[in-house]
């Protein structure tokens, strides 16, 4: 780490040792291969660029997710959040979606956001599962605190896993009563919800080395939905 001033050091939260997320590859319904890998701090500006146009997309609560995620990623880049990590899904290097979260302590994780850019292929579902996999299998945590900010998220997390209520805990995302994924439930759900193989073939991994932003037209089509009523 570069030298930082005493004042700057005091502004940063103390950090825990976090294991790296080993990349994996997932075959999507389209047959395309999506590499899921950890995103480093210096790559965050690229993700922010991808998120920016979504700040004003009301459909499916993309605006609130994008706005909060923008802040969370910025905080990660600028060392203003404790023990955060970011994963991205890349198809031929093109950003398909991203997820983030943080470790509350050694036993408890907190899921922040899942943002899908390439819709209709369960990319968000795969990335959320990768996030749970990171907490349980790689960080060795016992449980993950989760909330949903859209009905789609509620169906994907609360119903599909299914999650348990932990309403006495206020989640960091707006103080909403939290739900929880215990380790045991994760392992029960794993065969039907957690996919991917390791190691990622070298060529595929190389294709995911640099994050390429999708064309804005594709983002609009996939995220905001095409303008209806075309006749």
């Amino acid at each position, binding site marked *: 780490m570069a030298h930082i001033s005493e004042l700057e050091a005091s502004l940063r939260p103390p950090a825990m040792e976090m294991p790296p997320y080993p990349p994996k590859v*997932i*075959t*999507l*319904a*389209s*047959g*395309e291969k999506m590499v899921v890998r950890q995103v480093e701090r210096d790559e965050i500006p690229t993700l922010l660029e991808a998120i920016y146009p979504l700040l004003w997309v009301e459909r499916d609560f993309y605006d609130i997710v994008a706005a909060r995620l923008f802040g969370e990623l910025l905080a990660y880049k600028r060392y203003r959040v404790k023990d955060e990590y970011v994963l991205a899904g890349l198809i031929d290097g093109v950003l398909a979606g991203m997820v983030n979260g943080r470790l509350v302590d050694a036993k408890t994780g907190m899921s922040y956001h899942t943002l899908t850019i390439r819709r*209709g*292929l*369960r990319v968000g*579902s*795969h990335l959320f*599962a990768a996030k749970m996999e990171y907490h349980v299998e790689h960080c060795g945590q016992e449980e993950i605190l989760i909330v949903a900010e859209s*009905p789609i998220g509620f*169906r994907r997390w609360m119903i599909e896993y299914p999650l348990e209520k932990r309403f006495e805990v206020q989640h960091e995302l707006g103080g909403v009563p939290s739900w929880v994924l215990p380790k045991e439930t994760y392992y029960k759900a794993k*065969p*039907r*919800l*957690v*996919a*991917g*193989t390791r190691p990622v073939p070298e060529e595929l991994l190389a294709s995911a080395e640099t994050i390429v932003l999708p064309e804005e037209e594709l983002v609009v089509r996939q995220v905001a*939905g*095409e303008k*209806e*009523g*075309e*006749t």
Partner: protein
Amino acid sequence: MKPVYIAGAGMTKFGRAEWSLIRLASEASRSALHHAALGEIPVDGVIVANMGAARVNKQTALGSALVDQLALYPAMAEAVENGPASGASAFKVGCQAIASGMADVVLVTGVERMRVVNGLEGTDFVASLSHPEVEYIYGVTLPSLAGMFARLVMDRFGVERKHLAMVAIKNHLNATRNPYAHIQQAVTMEGILTAPEAIVNNPPIAEPLHMFDCCPVSDGAAAVVLVSEEIISKLAGPPVRVAGIGQATDTHAVHEREDPTDLKAVRLASEKAFSMAGLTPADVDVAELHDAFTILEIAESEAAGFFGHGEGHLALERGETALDGRLPINPSGGLKAKGHPVGATGVAQLVELTWQLRGEAEGRQVKDAEIAYACNFGGFGNNVVATVLRREAR
């Protein structure tokens, strides 16, 4: 009976709509009227097909509402509800009005806006077409009926999950060429069946049917303009004649059928339609079948007479139903990928076939299509409307 022609066809993009139900219907209608280019010729009647507006949109009397929205007064107006066969039923009523001489120009519009409710409520709403005392109260849904039907067909005729996946792959590919389709995403055998990830990508819905075996829940509208022979002679564009219509019913409860794998209503409705048209299934160049579930495309292709009983999946394997095959089925993407706004579906099938016969289907055009067939499958096969269209020389 007087001859009936389709003078114009139009639709909205299927998917999730923000527009109101009547706005959807009016946009599709305007498109069809524009396509027909009627000029000063008045519309005598408006018929709206819809299944669930009273329940999910809290709106009734859709015929009157659409006339008002389009300022087509004093046209006759009514709505037709016949489950998922509402569209073709409304089309049939429109044809009857022209054929009887009661009208010269009838607008038939199908519309549904069902994504205003959540998936569970939407599934329950569609399940309300099942038998109330021996099916619905036991939790029967359309996917569960289709799952049981698929199991029977698979056991008896050697249909495998790969055949179901082949239907999905074909129709998703066709939908990528249809700008009106709800899901314009190609899928592969690896991604939905053979890869280890396929169980996550394509989870079970009602075994043996998985997610990609089921149509999406869609909003949308479609419309056609029916006219008499006198009117069509005044209009430009290739005349598409309604050559034959057949309708047949079967028992409400599926288990009461002697052979549940025999889609008797499809068979009888098709026979009537072909008889009326003076044609046979072998004459058909392009077909739109009601593939709410992939297994239905295979079963209907047999019951309509295109292939022998239990041989539909073999024709599929040989590529005969692909866009470049001997008999392209569901060039639009079908319900599977184009989408299934239930009340609009039967009309949308006829919109696609009209475009095909007029040579206006662009990237998915079936070459030299002259004869077309549609099957609109109501209930779980207890009320079916089959239609045969024919392009005539000017």
